[in-house]
């Protein structure tokens, strides 16, 4: 209750999100749910995610999670996006339970981006 609700990592990711923005010409997916809005875009080459970017309207944990996810997913095979699970992020960012729903919206957005990529390939 008296603890800082944001870990140092969340603070750092929120303060300097290197993947903020949109990638012109890439694949993209957007979700508006539970009071949060997320847009993701990715540049894919040979089935691999070369670059990812996000835009988000939501709480600091959501923004930090989006930034962390983009960093983590760059270099991965696009199919992995289809099975992306946010549980790891929730733990590493110490997301409070009441915010789980919002992070699951991010999970949905990533999976949805995965479908966009794999279906258009």
């Amino acid at each position, binding site marked *: 209750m008296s603890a800082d609700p*944001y870990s140092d990592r969340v*603070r750092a990711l*929120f303060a300097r*999100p290197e993947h*903020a923005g949109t990638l012109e010409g890439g694949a993209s997916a*957007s979700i508006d749910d539970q*009071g*949060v*809005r*997320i*847009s993701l875009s990715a540049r894919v080459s040979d089935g691999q995610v070369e670059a990812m970017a996000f*835009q*988000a*309207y*939501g*709480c*600091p944990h959501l*923004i930090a999670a989006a930034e962390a996810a983009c960093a983590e997913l760059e270099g991965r095979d696009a199919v992995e996006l289809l099975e992306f699970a946010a549980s790891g992020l929730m733990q590493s960012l110490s997301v409070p339970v*009441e915010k789980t729903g919002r992070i699951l919206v991010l999970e949905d957005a990533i999976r949805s981006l995965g479908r966009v990529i794999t279906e258009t390939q």
Partner: protein
Amino acid sequence: MIYLDYAASTPVDPAVIESMAVAMAAPGNYANPSSTHSEGRYSNELIARAAGQLAELVGTSPDRLIWTSGATESDNLAILGAATYREDRGRHLVSMRTEHKAVTDPFATLAQRGFEVTWLDPDPDGRLGLDKLQSALRDDTQLVSVMHVNNETGIVQDIAGIGELCRERGVLYHVDAAQSCGKLPIDLDALPVDLMSMTAHKFYGPKGIGALYIADRKGVHVDPMLFGGGQQRRLRPGTLPTQQIVGLGETAAIATQRMAQDLEHLRTLRDRFWAGIQDLPGLIVNGSLEHGFPGILNVSAAGVEGESLLLALEPLCVATGSACNSKSQEPSYVLRALGLSDELAQAAIRFSFGRPTTEAEVDTAIALYRGAVTRLRQLAPAA
């Protein structure tokens, strides 16, 4: 850190801290004020002096004041106490949706106990239209509670006008003055107010001490909530906390002296802040610059999420909603009652200025707010 959360609580004036330390340490001051020996009589005199200081601040006589642990207790004692005492005169009560929880919750409790509560909505500027109140009053209405200054928006209600309507109809009028006592002129002898709640920690006094004013008028009385040692005419027993009362008294004395200059200072700061941010697109002032207490400015920025805004504003200490609600993620019910959408209510930031606030702090706040709003808007997807 830059503290712009004076509506949540204030630092205690050094002279007040000093007076409290003396009341705890000096030989005899610590005696129980109920004791008949010389030391008890002495601490009792300290309390009488403090009552005089608070009475002077709000324009009444000292014997009209009951000491409590703060405005929450004062509100409860006034509302539960008066409603129960006057139960036989009618069980209809009137209040507003924009009151503090320390007022709405006792009314909700009374509603569960068989009272009927009419909740009035504010006009778009946050004030209560007197015609609305007029038509809400019934023959069985026995108590109206409408606050003086709203803790989230700073809106100032027309307590004289409301009180007059109540008096015409023989209805008791309670005012939660937690945010105005010591900051705006209040002359209880001239005002048609029957019960008024005060608290020290909102105007540079200690936390955990407040008072309830009970007018000397036929039918104005409250049933006690606590039972015990018989102190305070049995209305509120318990050993009187000498140092807390002395602190509130000193706080009141300082406020009596400084009120005009404090108000001028707040007006300068608030106007400077607003001038520094008003050109940002999509800003909404929640409340009214015209009818607002200048110590509080509540602003929403469209398209910016509140919690992220709060973090982006660090090291600025400000509030979303009121401090008492600020742990919950719910959008403020006060702002919703003003007609704001959930999203705009959540993006609301309450800046509240105080005696120690400097123009340099305000300038930093302007820069931080402009930067944060701009960055978060850039970060958000187009709506």
